[in-house]
């Protein structure tokens, strides 16, 4: 789909402004941005004829005018207080419209061998160490748009055998201006051999105004390293949210990507993991909740490129109102990737007749000695279960809410950060019908 002239002019102007702001950026980055700009301006946003975008139309984005948010300080500490993780003992980095706000962030000491800071700052120093970790595949219109317009994000580097004891929290807040704004945060995480680190990306909108959030996070998981990534998306009701998480895993590494999608009118979360060393372990574990007219798309690839890898992929969605959930789970097992063990399950619960879900598992297996399973379900609550609960004296509304909670909570139980898990169990409860009664029900009887 080519970009209409008017949109082309707008994005080109934004690029020129971003390029002007980015003078002094390293040459390699200028080249990447130029290439991304050329690709984006010539191909534009994907259309529904593009197989990867068959179920998700982004026409609404092309039509709307999003501006790069004006520079300057908008958010205050009281604005962000509510989004701070409870009792976080680690670092909390705050980004406003994609730009690092050191003044709102909480910085605490990190072990030797760890670098944590704004990406922009790392780039102004040349950022040569970033080059191999910066532009991963797959690229699409949104990652190109990010590359051409990105200003800032986080750069986290964890040295060999270093364990970062507390999670690193990244808070991406969009503050509405008079005109709809766009933000293109870009994050790079490099976990050295044998290191361990947990990163929590949380996205939230501070106003109901329309916005476009288009984030890219690239993660290199070194040999025998462990990276756990959380992504929690609670953007505002008129937001468009795009995110690409691209991970490359070394030998014996462990990578987990947990996610919860609650917000935005339209969201697309992509996760692409390449198990590029032997015996790598990958877990993708996500929950999505849709209501009203929301459209929630999860688009994943797990690429087993080397032998002995194992992957688990669990996504569950609850769709109410007229919302629509889309899941594409592609698992590739390359010719060399013998002894791969891959399991995938996507389950969708429809709470209303108008809600819809499309689930597309795609297994591409080129090796012969592998174990791969997948399963996908879409359906309403099991009425037999509802009746069972009612026959024990539990009212119908609570029974339905509780069953929906039970359906989803298994995903959250895999979250190994108790604070995050509790926070999102609360959010899940609050989202469900009869929240008050269910909460009473679940009160720990001890």
């Amino acid at each position, binding site marked *: 789909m080519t970009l209409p002239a008017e949109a082309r002019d707008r994005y080109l102007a934004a690029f020129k402004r971003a390029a002007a702001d980015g003078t002094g950026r390293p040459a390699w980055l200028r080249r990447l941005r130029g290439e991304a700009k050329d690709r984006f301006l010539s191909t534009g946003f994907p259309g529904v004829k593009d197989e990867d975008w068959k179920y998700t139309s982004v026409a609404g984005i092309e039509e709307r005018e999003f501006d790069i948010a004006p520079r300057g300080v908008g958010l205050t500490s009281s604005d962000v207080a509510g989004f701070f993780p409870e009792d976080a003992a680690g670092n909390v980095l705050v980004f406003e419209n994609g730009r690092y706000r050191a003044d709102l962030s909480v910085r605490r000491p990190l072990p030797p061998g760890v670098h944590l800071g704004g990406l922009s700052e790392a780039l102004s120093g040349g950022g040569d160490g970033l080059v191999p970790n910066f532009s991963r595949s797959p690229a699409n219109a949104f990652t190109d748009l990010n590359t051409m317009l990105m200003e800032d994000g986080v750069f986290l580097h964890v040295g060999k055998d270093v364990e970062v004891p507390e999670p690193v929290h990244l808070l991406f807040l969009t503050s509405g201006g008079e005109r709809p704004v766009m933000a293109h945060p870009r994050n790079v995480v490099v976990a050295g051999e044998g290191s361990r680190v947990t990163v929590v990306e949380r996205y939230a909108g501070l106003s109901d105004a329309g916005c476009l959030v288009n984030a890219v996070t690239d993660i290199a998981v070194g040999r025998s390293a462990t990276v756990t990534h959380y992504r929690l998306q609670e953007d505002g009701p008129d937001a468009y949210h795009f995110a690409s998480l691209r991970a490359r895993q070394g030998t014996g590494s462990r990578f987990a990507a947990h996610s919860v999608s609650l917000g935005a009118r339209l969201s697309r979360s992509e996760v692409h993991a390449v198990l590029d060393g032997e015996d790598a372990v990958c877990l993708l574990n996500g929950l999505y909740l849709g209501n009203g007219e929301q459209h929630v798309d999860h688009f994943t690839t797990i690429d087993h490129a080397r032998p002995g890898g194992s992957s688990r992929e669990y996504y569950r969605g609850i769709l109410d109102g007229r919302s629509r959930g889309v899941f594409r789970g592609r698992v590739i097992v390359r010719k060399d990737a013998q002894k791969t063990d891959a399991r995938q399950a996507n389950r969708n619960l429809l709470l209303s007749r108008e809600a819809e879900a499309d689930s597309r598992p795609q297994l591409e297996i080129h090796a012969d000695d592998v174990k791969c399973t997948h399963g996908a379900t879409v359906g309403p609550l*099991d*009425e*037999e*279960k509802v*009746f*069972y*609960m*009612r*026959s*024990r*004296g*539990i*009212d*119908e509304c*609570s029974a339905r809410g*509780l*069953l929906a*909670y*039970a*359906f*989803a*909570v*298994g995903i959250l139980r895999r979250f190994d950060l108790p604070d995050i898990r509790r926070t999102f169990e609360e959010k899940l409860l609050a989202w469900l019908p009869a929240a008050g009664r269910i909460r*009473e*029900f*679940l009160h720990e*009887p*001890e």
Partner: protein
Amino acid sequence: MRNGIPMLSIEHLHAAIGEKPILRGVDLVVHAGEVHAVMGPNGSGKSTLANVIAGREEYRVTAGSVLYQGGDLLAMPPEERAKEGIFLAFQNPVEIPGVSNLYFLKAALNAVRKHRGLQELDVVEFRDMVLERLRRVEMGEDLLRRAVNDGFSGGEKKRNEILQMAVLEPKLAILDETDSGLDIDALKVVAAGVNAFRSPERAIVVVTHYQRLLNHIVPDFVHVLVEGRIVRSGGRDLALELEERGYGWVQPPGVEGGEEAHP
């Protein structure tokens, strides 16, 4: 002997699933203190009868009436029936992953107690009571921590039903094929749980295909349901006779007086 308002009074009950009639005129009166067995071959409507009493909406009542303690049972939603003291032990107890057995029991018990104007039990009282009931059905404490019926064996599920009954203390318990899939030891445990529950204030309806459970839960009355009607009622001996002669011996309605009825 059978004085006062019956616990349950079913008259001329017709029920269908979709357009298919299953019950075609059932009459049954159950008083407090009584144990009734409803027996019948597969497809005779036994489970339908149990589910209609518990309020399952897929079973559509097309004619007749059901009074519970003199009130119109059919007008009550299932949760009301439960709160008023009706309990159905399911033939196939439902698995509810994600909800712990303990939470479930506590929520159910508190719903029932609230309705009866009783104080909700505090945490310690609740635990003590559950642990005591748990021993009755010889269940391990770990089953409380697990999700409701999730990954339970067939026997564990049936015991869990009896545990729920023992905790909720209903007035009218309906056991739907509670013996199916149980080995003899489990059957004895389940039967002992039910017998401990018997009292002059309570009534039990045991729905079963086989006589064997009735060796352990001895009924006061036995009814034979065939093609949606009770074709014969009697005492405990009727069950033994059925065991010996099979269901071919009793006739579907409409052919009564046929040759085989008078061997």
